[in-house]
């Protein structure tokens, strides 16, 4: 298998990454084999996890959506009301629509770039102020007041801070997938046989943590440490998987 050259810096976000994968795998955007794309995307994100890089939450949100799509597709159609086929079609159409929309703006921003670069090379000459003010002594060509000056200074300072973000302390704490899996493992009390989904996400205050929790559960299922017990409209419960215990 060809290993990915794993680097997220070159992408503007998950949609950009997907467009890159589509191009690389020579998929047809207008007749998209969504499953192939999803597999590629998941593989890419997993490869990233191996290299221990922080993954921006946006990539994980898309990952969760794709996994949900894929898992729904795998489920046997027990309940005809769920109408899996339609769900699949809608999700696929929506994804393709978003990719095409994003591609349009990517294309147009390249054209804007050309205009911008050219304009940057072209220089303006100031208004001939001496001449203009001379025409009428009473007349002042430019008018301004001290508030304009302060506003300009404040903008300068704001921009200075924006371009020197190292001076700013971020208090954003993110938890990795591995850490969350460990936390969930610790939640599993051996005396209990089944666990509610709610129990695993009880402390998930942010959408980010919620998604990481969800991914951690999926990963634990994949490793056979957790197993799905029951899925009903109201609740999902898990049981300990065959590999539980061996994981220690």
């Amino acid at each position, binding site marked *: 298998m060809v290993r990915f050259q794993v680097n997220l810096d070159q992408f503007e976000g998950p949609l950009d990454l997907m467009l890159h994968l589509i191009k690389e795998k020579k998929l047809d955007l207008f007749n998209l084999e969504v499953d192939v794309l999803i597999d590629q995307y998941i593989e890419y994100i997993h490869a990233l996890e191996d290299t221990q890089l922080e993954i921006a939450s946006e990539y994980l949100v898309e990952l969760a959506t794709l996994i949900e799509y894929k898992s729904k597709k795998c489920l046997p159609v027990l309940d005809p009301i769920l109408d899996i086929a339609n769900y699949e079609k809608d999700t696929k159409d929506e994804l393709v629509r*978003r990719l095409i929309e994003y591609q349009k703006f990517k294309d147009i921003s390249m054209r804007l770039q050309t205009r911008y670069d050219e304009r940057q*090379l*072209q*220089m*303006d000459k100031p208004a001939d102020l001496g*001449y203009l003010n001379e025409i009428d002594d009473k007349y002042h060509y430019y008018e301004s007041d001290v508030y304009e000056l302060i506003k300009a200074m404040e903008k300068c300072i704001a921009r200075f801070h924006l371009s020197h973000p190292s001076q700013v302390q971020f208090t954003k704490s993110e938890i990795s997938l591995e850490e969350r899996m460990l936390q969930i493992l610790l939640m599993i009390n051996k005396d209990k046989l089944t666990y509610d989904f709610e129990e695993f996400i009880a402390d998930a205050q942010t959408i980010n943590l919620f998604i990481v929790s969800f991914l951690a559960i999926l990963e634990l299922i994949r490793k056979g440490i957790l197993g799905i017990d029951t899925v009903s409209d109201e609740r999902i419960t898990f049981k300990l998987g065959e590999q539980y215990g061996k994981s220690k």
Partner: protein
Amino acid sequence: MENPNKSILEGIIFIFGEDGVTLEQLSLAIDYPIDLTKILCDELIEHYHHDDRGMELVVFNDKYKFITKPFIRSYVERILTLSKTRQLSQSALETLAIIAYKQPITRVEIEEIRGVGCELMLKKLQAMELITESGRAESVGKPILYSITESFLDLFKLMSLDELPNLPTYEDRTEESQLFE
């Protein structure tokens, strides 16, 4: 002998420099109908378009002004230490493009198209005066609406927003192959 109004227009546009001057102002100054004034301006644009000229006459944000042609800069740099030009990142350009085509637009709507958060980027673009808050949407929470500014038109060499290149449609199947060549 040419129409003498043409040299007057040239002189006026030169005086106002980077501030530029509108077609209406020019027509007023020479007391000449707008449509005919425009024809004279077009002829001037044509004159400066020629390779022999070091400036060109442009209309950005509906204002006529002279600016140097791109090739002049490297020569000026030999006698004046011009600092390097400001680059716009790919994400800044994408965000600007979305706002220009969809304005007025909320942050959430921009993020839906880009698939990533852009709070910080919007602040940067505001600080650069390329976008501005232009009101509040009627939807829940009354989110801020963003629009592009006049400086945007100048920086991207646009007479007006109508001059923005059309968004590709991709509906035409023949174009498809060009999508990812």
